[in-house]
């Protein structure tokens, strides 16, 4: 048994169909999407935003977008879950970037945010062995892998990564760029 659970889409729930129903104004379909997807969406948003209230804000906004834009989702051209999470990540990152600048203004002490963050290596363990993301990340040097992982999962900026990893900004940027080239070649 090579396939891990993470690889298998949750059974039964037909997200593309539910989106189609939303486009027709079916509120129950939106609720069904909420029941099926909101817990995981909250988890993704929490990793980015770290605060429950902000994570809920991102999920709330995402569902409002989904309701309004369900008609523009075309199942023939893209995967519904990817669509949903892209909307969520966009929203969460916008909140995060806005917030972190507020924090800057307030001389917020960034150390307080670090503690509940999962480190890059244990995040790696959560990835399915069968997937190419894990296999290809494993080819990167640990510090570069860490930079990419913290950027995606926790939404760290170049500057925050430099601070966290204790290297100059320019180094972080070139780590990321080279890692992306390597990932692209490995995952094509």
């Amino acid at each position: 048994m090579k396939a891990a659970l993470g690889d298998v889409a949750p059974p039964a729930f037909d997200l593309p169909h539910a989106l189609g129903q939303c486009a027709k104004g079916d509120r129950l379909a939106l609720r069904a999407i909420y029941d099926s997807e909101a817990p995981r969406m909250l988890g993704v948003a929490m990793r980015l935003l770290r605060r429950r209230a902000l994570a809920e804000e991102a999920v709330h906004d995402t569902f409002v977008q989904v309701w309004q834009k369900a008609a523009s989702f075309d199942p023939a051209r893209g995967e519904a879950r990817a669509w949903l999470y892209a909307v969520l990540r966009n929203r969460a990152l916008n909140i995060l970037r806005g917030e972190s600048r507020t924090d800057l203004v307030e001389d917020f002490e960034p150390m307080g945010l670090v503690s509940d963050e999962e480190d890059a290596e244990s995040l790696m363990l959560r990835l399915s062995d069968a997937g190419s993301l894990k296999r290809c990340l494993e080819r990167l040097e640990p510090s570069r892998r860490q930079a990419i992982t913290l950027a995606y999962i926790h939404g760290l900026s170049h500057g925050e990564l430099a601070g966290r990893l204790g290297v100059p900004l320019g180094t972080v940027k070139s780590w990321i760029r080279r890692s992306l080239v390597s990932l692209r070649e490995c995952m094509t």
Partner: protein
Amino acid sequence: MRRDDFDRLAAEHVLGLLEGEERGVADNLLASDGDFRNLVELWRQRFSAWDETADELPAGDALWARIESSVSAAPVAAPRASAASRPASPGVLERIWESLSFWRTVGLAGAAAALLMGLGMGFFAIKASRQPVMIAVLLNDANQPGAVLSTFEDGRMELVPLGDMTIPHNHSVQVWTFPDPAGPPVSVGVLRAARTARMTMDDLPQPHSNQLFTISVEPLAGSPTGLPTGPVVMKGTASAAL
């Protein structure tokens, strides 16, 4: 732009790493370039396994209730005819965020408020120059005064930008206040140009001393969510005018 730069831009957009000028470049490409949208889609797929690794957190009825009430209050879904009549491209998703017409739809309320604000200006201009009740000097992130905000007894408010307040292209700035220090910010008005603006705070209680005012950068029609979404560029607290 070299092919590698193009792809790197797409990847860093998905990672959320783009800042400043590059962010604007990527936003424009998303709106205009199908190849770029395809690259973005590829990177989304490459990283999507990570989304599956997040813990599931209980999503309660309270959050659903908020979503439902927002959905009820929101304008009717975007014109379906036009969405159906043209073939959807892979970049449909990106355009949700980038397209002005979408923000217009979402921000209809904000736009309406801005319109009322504009109409109101002429009226208020007549009986301007009365003694303010409260004054707040809003400081930018360099701690320099960026705008002065005065509130008047009749609920009017006047915002005078100082120096070179700039509003990013295709954006607005939105004024917020915190009537309840522990509560969420409440929108006071949306500005698309850095010039003196008058607004009303009729729906809000008379500002109290030390009440916080902030200004954030938002989409052209104002925040789509009713809360600040962009960076806060100025802030300050009110004091009684002597």
